């Protein structure tokens, strides 16, 4: 079958998709977007977390056909997604309650290309930079899913308590870090976001 959907703001078309293929498989193997990770492929680890019409989902549990006509954001598009959200008065300002990004807002942007060798050329989302700065990345396999989940939480809840962070990230397994530096990173991202908002 053919599946049409939008990924990181760009229309995508995948051909010859077998009905049993997951959204994760189509992203990774058909669209050249392997950033979403395949750690368990049974919805337990969160490493494949993407946003489907704004909602964080395990893309391994979404049949590719279910994404037809919908908006997907992956870790590859996270930086631009966050930037455009900030520019369009999204929750980076801390003022937009718990609604998340509307479908309309989500459609207004598209990711810019990056150098796929070095990752250079793109500005990072605040949460991405915070993960690097806080030492929250070791092997990095859980990182893409955690980033998508953490970014979505910060959009809803710009000043989370530790308990809020733990609850929001409880579906994302990490085997390397013991989570302490992931908490540090999310706190750091929230603090930087607040500073930015005050500066506005």
């Amino acid at each position, binding site marked *: 079958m053919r599946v049409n959907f939008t990924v990181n703001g760009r229309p995508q078309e995948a051909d010859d998709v077998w009905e049993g293929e997951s959204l994760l498989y189509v992203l990774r193997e058909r669209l050249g977007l392997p950033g979403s990770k395949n750690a368990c492929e049974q919805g337990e680890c969160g490493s494949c977390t993407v946003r489907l019409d704004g909602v964080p989902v395990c893309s391994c549990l979404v049949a590719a056909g279910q994404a037809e006509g919908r908006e997907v954001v992956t870790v590859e598009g996270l930086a631009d997604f966050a930037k455009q959200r900030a520019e369009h008065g999204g929750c980076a300002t801390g003022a937009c309650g718990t609604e998340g990004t509307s479908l309309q807002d989500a459609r207004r942007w598209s990711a810019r290309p990056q150098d796929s060798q070095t990752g250079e050329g793109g500005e990072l989302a605040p949460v991405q930079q915070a993960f*690097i700065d806080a030492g929250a990345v070791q092997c990095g396999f859980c990182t893409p899913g955690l980033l998508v989940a953490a970014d979505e939480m910060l959009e809803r809840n710009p000043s989370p308590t530790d308990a809020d962070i733990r609850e929001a990230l409880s579906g994302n397994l990490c085997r390397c870090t013991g989570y302490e530096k992931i908490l540090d990173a999310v706190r750091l991202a929230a603090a930087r976001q607040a500073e930015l908002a005050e500066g506005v």
Partner: protein
Amino acid sequence: MGTTGTPTKITQGSQTKGGIGESTLRPDGTLKVTGEFAYSSDMWHEDMLWGQILRSTVAHAEIVSLDTAEALATSGVYAVLTYDDLPTDVKNYGLELQDTPVLAHGKVRHHGEPVALVAADHPETARRAAAKIKVEYRDLPVVTDEASALAPDAVLVHEGRDDEYARIVPHQNIVHRQPIVRGDAAAAAARADVIVTGEYTFGMQDQAFLGPESGLAVPAEDGGVDLYIATQWLHKDLDQIAPVLGLPKDKVRMTLSGVGGAFGGREDISMQIHACLLALRTGKPVKMVYNRFESFFGHVHRHPAKLFYEHGATKDGKLTHMKCRIVLDGGAYASASPAVVGNASSLSVGPYVVDDVDIEAIALYTNNPPCGAMRGFGAVQACFAYEAQMDKLAAKLGMDPVEFRQLNAMEQGTLLPTGQVVDSPAPVAEILRRVKARPLPPERQWESSEGADVRQLPGGLSNTTHGEGVVRGVGYAVGIKNVGFSEGFDDYSTARVRMEVVAGEPVVTVHTAMAEVGQGGVTVHAQIARTELGVTQVTIHPADTRVGSAGSTSASRQTYVTGGAVKNSCEAVREKVLELGRRKFGSYHPAWATAELLLEGGKVVTDGGEVLADLVDVLQDEAVDIELEWRHRPTEAFDLVTGQGNGHVQYSFAAHRAVVEVDTELGLVKVIELACAQDVGKALNPLSVVGQIQGGTTQGLGIAVMEEIVVDPRTAKVKNPSFTDYLIPTILDTPTIPVDVLELADDHAPYGLRGIGEAPTLSSTPAVLAAIRNATGLELNKTPVRPEHLTGT
């Protein structure tokens, strides 16, 4: 300056930004947060096929028949391979003993053993074709524990063994046995005022790295193969792969892909040989990626163990003697079992002074899943048991458990049961003091004016208690882990370092075969190069087999050994650069001949700070490029009868204090805080050091309260091969982990550093167990602690 002088001396000044001791950020960090970092499962090649393994559905059976016709006839299938298709006489591999069949030959010895391979144009096609292979098994009796393994009429898991241990073990179902006898434990026992004994059971832990076993094999025009792979040790893989393929090693070119964690689970071969076989057979690139179910069968696990301990002490609290017997279940194939036995026996006494010991450790062959390397490697199981014993002794003597440990703590100069002297700092008493001195987290933190915050209680959002039946406990533990490969192993590493001028700037390239598995070796290598060569720009070359072996990313050894190799090669490059400088500019300034010279800020400077030349001018268009091997001090094998020998090169010590709250009615545990103090010798990258300690601590927490591969004792089949049924700690299960880092230099090691990755996994588990015992008053001699152990139901 130069390569002589005390090894702990930082021969270069620390002027260069981003050198050792700074928390520089990971060079791969940006790629990892943008999703661009290419892990082994992300590899893609035009026209590639997907490989799939058919694994045995039974643990121990003869293969009566194997029919691949229907699978081969499936549309989209390019090849189906069985044992009969192996191209050479070498049909086995193994880390220490070559006892593991590439594909089963007439018999399977454990649940999930590879039987056949399929290559197809879609992974699902390959899976379905594999399911069409008809295998008829005739069940054999299963060997599952010590009793069934060592019975006089026991079925032998491996008949006709001819390995080096076969002649010395008392039974052919014992892989290896290491006794250690020192002093006279029986006589010393007579002096004891109190004696405690215990029998402890340690469950099978899975490494549960998140990046599944995977890789891409690309056949080459020269008849060789290029393999892109996630592993812990490229060269050891190569040693095992090439003979099976019938290729010379230079025709199997291996490149390290992104590795999604390892923790010991990638020390053995998984799909490497299988992918190469399929690629060479089909002439097409073949990608293989395990799913999580298969990953549970696709790598070795931590040895489950039974540990029998006896300790004695005088009434003033001095240990008199220790006797122990440690029975490790190695499963169906040897993997790293012999070395795990060596660690378990030689570290069985823990970080304590005990002169009279009688120790025996064995690893069994059984039909359970094969067990091998995992973070802590034999020392973890022992620590769980001896720390429980310490608490029992302290209780019996009416002493404080920390004071009792401190009274018996080893220190620099202590003689180990192996007769080896501990010849570097061993601050066991001090790290215990530090975790104890830390303020305790406030009681009943869940209480607020709006009622209980269930998120902070045992059971969490399941809303199982609002504080009723919840009691608190505090427990302590400390452990000792060896660093590096022991027992006379030639534990070397290789580093190639190149300095040249690129775009008007001196640039250093560091090339090693070190497997970066997340630990941050790549960060540290760049720091070492900056410190030693005084340049800012350092490129880390991808790890591959075009440079000499780096040894394994295991045994907490890479910063020590490959870090040491990078330092050593940098020193050689520095000497060469200074020689060049003397030749070109020596006549212009007497300091070239007389002063101590350093490389700093891209310049040659005297130790007085006078600039003699710019590196750009010294090098011009010349590149200095040096590849050298580097070794730590040699070790010795343990005597097979007495266990005596200078077997280890370095030790690592960590202590934990655990604070838990237990819902005694439902048997649920919430760990509130898990504080750690560890001596790291020298923190080359403090941020990474703390990250390692917190990660290791959390894996120990997993052992304590949730992690276990459950194997059916009747069938030897794995019952929980999924993240639904095998639980690892989530962010909700993991408490705050405050870390206190000591830096007491080991004068024998580069920069005085100490390998750090494993020690925190040792003491974390027994500290949590001690805290739960403290809360409940229960004996709790098993890991993991399950609700039924706490409720007695």
